[in-house]
């Protein structure tokens, strides 16, 4: 087990490096100029030139190497940088470093994403079990319909609709912003819908499949009730596909959803990424991508470890 984890951790930098290189090339190829402004007076040409030099925007290779060195902490180890994991200054928001931006936004996105994933698990498993117990019954049809809606209706529609209803009309929740738990509920719910729908389907199919398997039939023959078999024996096996889905799902949810964050004015990192791409804020884009890919790799590892823990028969090598 330990050697498995160590091996996986050892390849993590390689994966992240590949992601870094691809993202770097893409951001560099996108047209536009981070030093240009949408509003306001244009700085004199020599000032733009000076900034271009300062940030190495005229030298992609130099930028690539220097940024990689600082971001990975290598420069810090070698003593050429004063801080480890320095993701650089934001090119557009001049008072902030990318580290500060991510440090402010990431806890928010993690809170929102985790709540959404937990909600998705609760909603999804409940709906899936209900459906799996009595396939094609009334409850199943309702649950399936809702999960279809959850998958197919885009979250900006769901988001705007529940914002109008629960915050503006009924005033149960504040409209937008971030703070205590009341601010989390609506965006987390909006964010959780596609995940819960997917989980519901995974659980439902898993249940239906497992209920017809030999061990379930044996248990039934021994006199256990249908529900008893489902909860005691079948659910655990039906849950395994959910567990493998959980890794990437949690990573996606926790690194922020641009749409949900925008509709509910949640200050997470999802919108920073899109703003970064739009404004060609190269350092910000690179920083967010690095954090995201690292999280994705680590979550997948965590899921694999958990898999093994939940079902010891699985070989992790």
């Amino acid at each position, binding site marked *: 087990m330990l050697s498995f984890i160590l091996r996986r951790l050892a390849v993590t930098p390689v994966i992240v490096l590949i992601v870094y290189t691809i993202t770097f090339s893409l951001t560099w190829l*996108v*047209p*536009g*100029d981070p030093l240009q*402004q*949408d509003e*306001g*007076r*244009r*700085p*004199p040409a*020599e*000032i733009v030139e*000076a*900034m271009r030099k*300062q940030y190495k925007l005229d030298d992609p290779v130099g930028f690539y190497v220097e940024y990689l060195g600082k971001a990975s902490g290598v420069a810090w180890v070698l003593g050429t940088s004063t801080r480890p994991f320095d993701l650089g*200054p934001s090119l*557009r*928001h*001049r*008072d*902030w470093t990318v580290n*500060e*931006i991510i440090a*402010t936004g990431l*806890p*928010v996105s*993690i*809170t929102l994403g*985790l*709540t959404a*994933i*937990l909600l998705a*698990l609760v909603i999804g498993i409940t709906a899936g079990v209900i459906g799996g117990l009595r396939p094609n019954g009334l409850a199943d049809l309702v649950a399936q319909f809702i999960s279809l809606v959850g998958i197919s209706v885009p979250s900006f529609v769901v988001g*705007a609709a529940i*914002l*109008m209803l629960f*915050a*503006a009309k009924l*005033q149960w929740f*504040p*409209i*937008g*912003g*971030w*703070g*205590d738990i009341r601010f989390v509920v609506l965006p987390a719910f909006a964010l959780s819908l596609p995940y819960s729908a997917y989980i519901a389907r995974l659980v439902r199919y898993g249940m239906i499949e497992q209920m017809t398997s030999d061990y379930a039939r044996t248990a039934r023959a021994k006199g256990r009730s249908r529900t008893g078999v489902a909860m005691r024996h079948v*659910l655990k096996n039906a*849950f395994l596909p959910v567990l493998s889905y*959980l890794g990437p799902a949690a990573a996606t949810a926790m690194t922020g959803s641009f749409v949900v964050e*925008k*509709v*509910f*004015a949640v*200050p997470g990192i999802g*919108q920073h990424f899109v703003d970064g791409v739009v404004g*060609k804020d190269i350092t910000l884009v690179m920083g967010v991508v690095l954090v995201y890919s690292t999280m994705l790799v680590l979550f997948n590892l965590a899921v694999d470890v*958990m898999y093994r*823990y*939940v079902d010891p028969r699985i070989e992790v090598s």
Partner: protein
Amino acid sequence: MRLLVPFLFLLAILFLALSADHPRPRADLVIAQRADSFTLDPQRMSWRHDLRTARGLFETLVTLDPKNCAPQPGVAERWDISDQGRTYTFHLRPDSRWSNGEAVTSGDFVYAFRRALLADTAADYSGFLFHLVGGEEFFHWRGQALAEYAKRPVRDDAACAALWQATVEQFSATVGLHTPDDRTLVLTLKHPVAYMLDLLAFAALSPVHAKSVEAHVSFDPSTGRLVQGHDWTKPGKLISNGPYRLVDWRYKRDMRLEANELYWDAKNVRTGSIAIVIIEDANTTVLSAEAGGVDWVTDTLAEYRPEMLAERDRYERHYASELATARANGVSIDQALGRLPPPERGERRNTHGLDSFGTDFYSFNCRPTLSNSAPNPFHDPRVRRAFALAVDRETIVERVTRLGERPANVIVPRDAINGYTSPQGLPFDRVLARAELESAGWKDRDGDGRVENEQGALFPTVDLVYSLGSPRYRDLSFALREMWRATLGVQIVARGKETKDFRDDLKHGHFMIARGGWYGDYGDPTTFLDLSYSTDGNNDRGYVSATFDRMLQDAARELDPAKRLAMLTDAERFLMEEELPILPICTYVTVYMYEPAALTGVNQHPRLAQYFARLKREE
């Protein structure tokens, strides 16, 4: 049981993340902005909302009177203007202090102005100080010195420090800024500048606390440049001299300001704490304001805002006589609205479309040839005039833009500058438009509804470029396309481009007609007219006219203020009736949202220069 482990794992992370957050109680005044401040360093600002926040945190030498935008004392309690308008002596008030208790000195202003004039700072508004004796020369001197430094074989800390020493000496020896003592600041100008006080009220010329800024300065020996660390603008570190101090600033989330007890005029600061919250989504912003979570929306951008303004109109029409009586008795429009009964269904009073100090326009490419080296028909002013004459602005503001804008056929917004008379501008006249085009040699010679030149060649298909940033630009461009097609018989292709590509096209002159717009920075016509000066950095049109350049130069030399403004009127007439490099469409409208009875002190002067200290939420 094992199934519960993943849940517990997730719950643990959730609690960790939640405990990392510290919510705050509601501020006395909550302001919603679409975008976060880009910087709180006054000298590096260029966005209007940054400048507004700076007016809360910092105080300039002079400030603007809310009623007419005339300069009034700020940090300077009085000033003398001598030497035919070339020397300004400011006497700083003795009780002006920084938020750490230290006195604001004339040296702080010199320090801030020096930063603004250093090429290293990348200050967008360096140009405002080019009026100082030696200002422009110093800016270029430093640029030159850095360029030469970069070529040197030996570039180390010592060389860098020597260059900096030379720069400091060059500045104090050549730039017209002097501090006879800590409370006196003398500015010497190259030539009289009628609007110098207005420039000095501009937030980018706020003083900065020299010591705390200097603590974050370092030098890059490889380039010789001064590198300004950004940390001094962070909460707990930012030292300001204005009505407010910075308490908290969380990126793209909120900013918190508290009244600065050390501010000399603290008794007239009407609001204790201010929160500026960032809500990007236009619809969410409106909902927040409606529910009372936000007291003032500084820019309402919801797509349905024309309908919101129509509801406001309906409300005003409902109580037209009451409003007229109140207004006749000298009651402000907000007060009058606040006293009326609450709006009924389909009416509203919390949405305010206000004329701003900006003009929505289209640019003609004035270069002799296009970017593909084909001849450019718009090089001929008669063609530009023909296109301008064919535009029905009334229809555009009523049917297309629909925010109650004033149609504009001149570039300087009408009635926004004291003492300035706008020229008449060109009317909407289809017959005249066709005649102008014909005089330029373009006429429908074969009766197919399209114009040709003498050789029978069709008028080149017009390349009309707009940015996809907002549907407004698309709708406007389509409306213009139809008007020109119908009246002038020309073919037009409207090309929507992503903002970034659009800018590239503008820069490289890759257009015939392009969408544009401009907000003025100070209360003088030159803030708009300079756009057409041949060497101006914002002259996207490639418009070069020795006559117009000379008119601006002559006006700049004129000492008599009234005469100078009259000369600028002539210059604008030349620009807007003869030359038309720019085709104005309408004056920009900014849509504010606030309950007129609940928020007082909002300045409605077209320059919309809001000072936080003057705002108050009424209970």
